[in-house]
């Protein structure tokens, strides 16, 4: 699925990190549910709704979680960020962002080698407060 998105559809927002489902950089939403797109065959998702980082903003208006990442500096190099944000949107929708500890646990599939975790947690906490979607 990740290769289809990036190489065929040129939706290069979703990143290929480890390509083995360990880093979460490729996280997308399938029917609202987060998955590692590098470990899923595109053909399996015939008829499914795939949401990547490219679909979260409404035109020029950032999604509340995107805006919160900017506000809180929730990244350094930015490579993991599309996956972090897709995962965070689902994490909030699941109701798993009620405390910092809960955010850390339920975001544990998304690694950040720059170590921006404190700011990522801050961003998600704020995003959870503002996000209605």
């Amino acid at each position, binding site marked *: 699925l990740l290769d289809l998105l990036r190489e065929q559809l040129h939706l290069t927002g979703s990143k290929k990190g480890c*390509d*083995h*489902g360990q880093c*979460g950089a490729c996280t997308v939403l399938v029917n609202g549910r*987060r998955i*590692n797109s590098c*470990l*899923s*065959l595109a*053909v*399996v998702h*015939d008829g499914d709704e795939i949401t990547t980082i490219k679909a979260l903003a409404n035109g020029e208006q950032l999604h509340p979680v995107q805006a919160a990442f900017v506000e809180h500096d929730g990244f350094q190099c930015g490579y993991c960020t599309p996956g972090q944000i897709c*995962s965070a949107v689902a*994490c909030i929708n699941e109701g*798993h962002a009620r405390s910092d500890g809960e955010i850390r646990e*339920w*975001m*544990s*599939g*998304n690694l950040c080698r720059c170590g921006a975790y404190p700011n990522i947690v801050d961003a998600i906490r704020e995003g959870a407060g503002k996000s209605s979607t």
Partner: protein
Amino acid sequence: MNPFTYTRATDPKQAMNGVAGNASAKFLGGGTNLIDLMKMGVEMPSALIDINRLALSKIEELPDGGVRIGALVRNSDLAAHPLIVQRYPVLSQALLAGASP
């Protein structure tokens, strides 16, 4: 990855027929193990039979007090299911500890 055929099974009989007589055919469920092993050349199936659309996602309470868990139930769904949380909390916690969300 090696070339392979892909078939989406629409009923259990079709799924069984897909692997019958083909030792290198594999069922494809969530795929997070199988696809990873295929990328590394550990698994090289000649045929994948996608069983994701079969009706195997139920969690059912049985009359004798047990629970039947469908083969396609997602770990996170099982871990959050009231029956599992109340009656088998260790299973729920183990599932949540077993993989990242």
